[in-house]
């Protein structure tokens, strides 16, 4: 926000480096960024936020293609999926930001910048909540599927500090979405959540995952997806309130059913078993 004024400077540098001979200009712009250590916008090792890496449009394109190929070859490379999302999601992120700013709770999130990490969650308090409450169900989801909220990759290639936070929030909310939608972390559950996210956010990475994910499902699961889970996910995705605009950290005590009603999400028609088989 306070560095938005200097953003044009960074964009100018990047445009320069892509228009002229890329390498030498990149060198000089890198020198400029390093030399101008007093610049408030480049206070994190030449980036706008911790972990930020400056990239030219050419590099972003190369990253998008490379990470797409790598993610397809090895779907367990979550960092590649993350990079694909960051390099292709610029317009969708801007759209999300506008939606969040127009929503009062979303606006609060953008100003307060909450983070979902094990260190910020009060696990004992959440475990003591009644069954059916959002916090208790979330904890149950983490335990059953043996995941942790700290395993999300950090954002590296988004060139705006606020958009980078939105990307990070999207990643951290992903597990909460699993709880909200009642989907386990096996392949079918993940694809269903991806369909929901694609309809909600419009991120190209979600759309790609939604299209290519079903290829790894076996026939029966594919049928479940196409007949019941898929249409349910798409419908709810498009009509639900923006899931990033919800301040989950203040709603642990709220009942899950009530939260779903508030968000305009129907309960799932069928809950796939939480087995880890990919079914491929």
């Amino acid at each position, binding site marked *: 926000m306070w560095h938005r004024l200097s953003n044009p400077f960074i964009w100018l540098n990047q445009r320069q480096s892509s228009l002229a001979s890329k*390498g*030498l200009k*990149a060198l000089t712009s890198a020198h400029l960024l390093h030399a101008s250590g007093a610049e408030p916008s480049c206070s994190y090792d030449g980036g706008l936020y911790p972990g930020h890496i400056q990239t030219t449009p050419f*590099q972003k394109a190369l*990253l998008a293609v*490379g990470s797409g190929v790598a993610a397809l070859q090895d779907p367990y*490379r979550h*960092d*590649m999926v993350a*990079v694909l999302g960051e390099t292709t999601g610029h317009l969708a992120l801007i759209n999300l930001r506008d939606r969040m700013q127009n929503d009062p709770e979303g606006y609060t999130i953008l100003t307060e910048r909450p983070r979902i990490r094990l260190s910020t969650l009060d696990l004992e308090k959440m475990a003591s909540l009644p069954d059916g409450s959002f916090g208790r169900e979330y904890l149950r989801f983490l335990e059953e599927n043996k995941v942790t909220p700290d395993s999300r990759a950090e954002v590296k290639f988004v060139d705006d500090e606020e958009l980078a936070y939105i990307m990070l929030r999207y990643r951290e909310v992903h597990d909460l979405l699993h709880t909200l939608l009642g989907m386990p972390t096996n392949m079918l559950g993940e694809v269903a959540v991806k369909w929901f996210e694609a309809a909600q956010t419009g991120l190209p990475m979600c759309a790609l995952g939604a299209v290519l994910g079903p290829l790894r499902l076996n026939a029966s699961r594919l049928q479940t997806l196409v007949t019941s889970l898929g249409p349910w996910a798409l419908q709810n995705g498009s009509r639900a309130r923006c899931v990033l605009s919800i301040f989950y950290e203040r709603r642990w005590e709220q009942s899950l059913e009530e939260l779903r009603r508030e968000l305009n999400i129907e309960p799932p028609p069928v809950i796939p078993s939480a087995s880890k088989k990919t079914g491929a």
Partner: protein
Amino acid sequence: MTSRRQQRAFLTCSRSRKKSRVAQLGNMAASVRLLVRGLAHRSVTSAAAGGSCRSGGCLAPSSSRCISDAAEDRSTHFGFETVPEAEKAKRVYKVFENVAQKYDVMNDAMSLGVHRLWKDMLLHVMHPQPGARLLDVAGGTGDISFRFLNYVRYQQERQTRRAAGSVQTPSWQDISDKYPAEEDRPQESRAVVCDINKEMLKVGKQRADAMGITSGLSWVVGDAEELPFDDDQFDIYTVAFGIRNVTHVDQALQEALRVLKPGGRFMCLEFSKVTNPILASLYDAYSFQVIPVLGEVIAGDWKSYQYLVESIRKFPDQEEFKGMIEDAGFCCVQYFNFTGGVVALHSGFKL
């Protein structure tokens, strides 16, 4: 600095009568030299600081920074960044610890396999003979050492074939004469891989096991600036794509001189300056635009590969490095450019 100039005056090749002096200078243990240098610096700073300094060999206060050159105040380059010297080694260690597993894959991807040709050329120029002892510093994953062992084994086989072929119809006397000769084999060639980074050595050992190399190879953890070997131990000293990561290149060169036998050869393969301007701009564009992306996609580590391409730019060019090698005391220093200067092979002899 004056002591260095004196050394250089001593060490010119034409003065063969100073050979004994050269040998004496070369034989000083590295630790002793470092100690002497440290004490000399301390005494200079405490003398210059005058009355403000406490008694004894204390360091000058920070106000007289221009005279003091304690290691904590000196800074050096880490890629395009400036860091204190003490920090550079740690950060380089971290870089190679991160990339060790994917190091060989990345080399193939970044150079499109051409790095294999460069290393083959190094061996071709080296032309080691059976019985040679090699020290491969910053040898990491063992590329040079494996090639060395293959090369000498091939040479050995050629020699035995030639020897066998020269005697077409041996008599019984000839055959019985050969038996003790075969047992009394010439000293087996040995390669020692020395690297400061344990992760890289681990990967190298795994590769050696996979290739089935059982003898003639050892793995040693060591710092190129302070090698854990005695004087006059090795016939050949190689450092391939490692010397630009060393904080004090001149110290590494002096150590190389120390551990080599008289007549031993120093060989350094390193990225260098491309002279052709068109090739240079293409190379720069490729280095800065493509290589970090490859690092991110294949190894999941952008910053390490950004450091690698930046460190290439900070390394001295062919002529300057040749001068540094001559300063250290090597003779007949020459360099060969590969791929238009992308890589240069520097070679010098200890006489």
